[in-house]
């Protein structure tokens, strides 16, 4: 059955040991193998996802009733700060790039490793050191500033360990920077012979765009957080208006990083989706080049729109108008991607495996998240919606509905490659459906809540909002089941799963030409690329059927 042509010759069957053959703790903690580092990240971010999830579970329980009956206001403030900080910096930002990207980028390029393997390991240690500091701050009383650390509250008035928390984010940030640098250099310098830029898988393009943001935006956040910490420690700084400083300057600097960071939290997910949709529609990605360019366009435009977080902050109205216009422009490359994925599915030979269910979930939820972003980019509407649950729902549709769906889809898609085992199909499909259903039940009511005027970050609310809040909390419990299921059956598959073989999906990328799990050096014979990506042949499959 020939239904696809891989980009290079299949590797000979593996005779030596695979990359997992060593079991000692030392072999893990001192590894420079990009695949093992990817797995170190996988285990760590799963832990942080659970911690961030516990925080939000407590929040959703509190929000079941309009009164504040579980927590004091200050505790609730600490919970949403903990949820935000952990989920953004210690789960979402490293999710697809550091786990799947680390594992896959060198293999997709036909390389033995990333360009700087020891720096790659250092990035994980920096990430863990930053996380340890942030967790220390949480355990020793927490921080109540919100994940945005707005001044002068964070630098002057807030209680709790703001300095430890921001230094944790600072250190982890340098882990991100190193990963980004490594990916850029690897993509430029370690491509296999024949692998020209327009033969790269779209996942690589999206990682490349993400890396540019990681390298150029993260340092701005880093120094800004240093300034906050100094201001808090010494009482002197450039953000506190009481001593002549400018609090808006903080917001400009923070969002100059954090808006591009939002695209760190979606671009890699788009790359994953491109891979999955092409494979399970058995078709070339429609408009490959445009989808590739769109990733770069999103990364570049992402640097020019930060002011849309500040429409009601006393920023000048002209600046607001320009930022509004530029924000609308981002929708163009994003929509191009959505239309091209749809066109890829059109008349494809759809194969409903779990990764495709996740990718379709991504497509629907990202579209809703993207379109509601247009409401928020409109100046006048934003004045009404600022700081309401509408904003919360919007960015969760992108970050959770989009990125987490894509991350899980990618994890399922490449799980056979990473572990050599197949996960059980039925529970996996069930989890995808639970997550999709639970997600919509959780967050769609929040659009309505926000439109009706319920502000975010409050745990005591007007009684007429209770029904929708109960719906949202009920959805969250379904969502939680959906997230716990994969944890169970993926671990189960490590022991009991069937052997996957090198290419269970008959996919075309270089990573599928080698054994599962791959040998330490990835390829025993250096691959030579002879084909374009996504060389699927749906008609031949139809003939076989």
């Amino acid at each position, binding site marked *: 059955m020939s239904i696809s042509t891989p980009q290079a010759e299949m590797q000979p069957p593996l005779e030596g040991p695979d990359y997992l053959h060593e079991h000692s703790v030392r072999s893990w903690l001192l590894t420079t193998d990009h695949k093992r580092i990817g797995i170190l990240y996988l285990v760590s971010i799963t832990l942080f996802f659970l911690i961030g999830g516990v925080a939000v579970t407590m929040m959703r329980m509190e929000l079941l009733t309009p009164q504040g009956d579980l927590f004091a206001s200050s505790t609730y403030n600490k919970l949403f700060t903990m949820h935000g900080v952990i989920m953004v910096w210690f789960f979402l930002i490293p999710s697809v790039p550091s786990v799947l990207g680390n594992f896959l980028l060198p293999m997709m390029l036909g390389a033995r490793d*990333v360009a700087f393997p020891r720096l790659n390991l250092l990035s994980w240690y920096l990430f863990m050191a930053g996380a340890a500091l942030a967790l220390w701050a949480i355990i020793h009383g927490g921080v109540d500033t919100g994940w945005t650390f707005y001044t002068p509250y964070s630098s002057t008035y807030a209680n709790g360990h703001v300095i430890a928390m921001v230094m944790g984010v600072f250190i982890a940030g340098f882990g991100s920077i190193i990963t980004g*640098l490594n990916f850029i250099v690897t993509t*430029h310098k370690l491509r296999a012979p024949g692998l020209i830029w327009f033969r790269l898988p779209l996942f690589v393009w999206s990682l490349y765009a993400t890396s540019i943001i990681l*390298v150029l935006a993260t*340092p701005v956040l880093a120094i800004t957080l240093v300034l906050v910490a100094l201001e808090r420690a010494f009482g002197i700084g450039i953000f506190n208006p009481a001593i002549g400083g400018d609090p808006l300057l903080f917001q400009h600097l923070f969002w100059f990083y954090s808006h591009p960071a939002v695209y760190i939290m979606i671009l890699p997910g788009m790359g994953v989706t491109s891979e999955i949709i092409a494979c399970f529609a058995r078709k070339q990605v429609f408009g490959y080049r445009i989808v590739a360019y769109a990733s770069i366009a999103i990364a570049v435009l992402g640097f020019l729109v930060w002011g849309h977080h500040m429409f009601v902050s006393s920023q000048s109205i002209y600046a607001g108008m320009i930022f509004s216009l530029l924000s609308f422009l981002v929708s163009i490359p994003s929509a191009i991607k959505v239309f091209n994925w749809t066109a890829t599915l059109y008349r494809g030979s759809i194969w409903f495996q779990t990764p495709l269910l996740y990718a379709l979930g991504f497509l629907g939820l990202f579209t809703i998240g993207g379109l509601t972003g247009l409401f928020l980019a409109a100046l006048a509407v934003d004045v009404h919606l600022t700081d309401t649950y509408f904003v919360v729902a919007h960015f969760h549709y992108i970050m959770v509905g989009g990125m987490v769906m894509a991350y899980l889809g990618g994890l399922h898609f490449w799980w056979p490659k990473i572990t050599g085992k197949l996960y059980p199909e039925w529970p996996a499909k069930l989890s995808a459906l639970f997550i999709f259903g639970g997600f919509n039940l959780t967050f769609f009511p929040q659009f309505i809540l926000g439109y009706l005027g319920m502000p975010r970050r409050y745990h005591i609310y007007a009684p007429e909002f209770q029904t929708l809040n109960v719906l949202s909390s009920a959805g969250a419990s379904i969502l939680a089941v959906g997230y716990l299921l994969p944890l169970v059956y993926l671990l189960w598959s490590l022991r009991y799963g069937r052997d996957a073989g090198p290419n269970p999906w008959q996919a075309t990328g270089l990573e599928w030409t080698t054994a599962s799990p791959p040998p330490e050096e990835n390829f025993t014979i250096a691959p030579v690329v002879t084909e374009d990506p996504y060389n699927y042949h749906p008609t031949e499959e139809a003939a076989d059927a």
Partner: protein
Amino acid sequence: MSHPSDSTAPPFTSFSQQREAATLGMWGFLGMEVLFFGPMFLGYIVFRINFPDAFMTASRHTLILAGGVNTALLLISSFTMALAVRSANLLEDSAKVVRSLLVTLLLGGAFVGIKCFEYSHEIHEGLLPGASFHLDGADPQQAQMFFYLYFLMTGMHLLHVIIGLGLIAVFILRAKLTVRKERFSIAMEQLGLYWHFVDLVWVFLFPLIYLGGRAA
């Protein structure tokens, strides 16, 4: 010509590939550094526009002679660093590399010494932001903002200089000991780029801090 153990670092297969990758990585790192310094320069611009008079007055309290000498020292040290990189690239006798690096180390060390002298002078004059800050002839809050930015930016720059000096010391040892000259020359090139960047940051800091209030 090259020593048998002089091989590329994995995953590279040739020296030219390794050199290009390392150089690209360094330029990416320096791009990151520009954005790391960026917010501090932006802060300077904002408050320079907000408090022009106080910044002029405060600027005149800096030690221009010390700043000028330091500028010269760093510029010359960039030249000696360039000589070291050139010697390493030509795979010359390691003594030449060591000599150029030692001069660079001395010049950089002198920069640090003079900078520390300046700091102690300013602290003595009561120009360190904080409760005891005082400066005649300007709004104290606004002048304090100038000196906060002064200590912040030159301090961050000084940190980079000290890291650079540490690296130079390591490279002096490496140059003496290594037989892998090709690989060493690749690393030397990156050290050179870093040092020139540190120099370049100072070239921007000097006029902002020392020259502001002194025209006309």
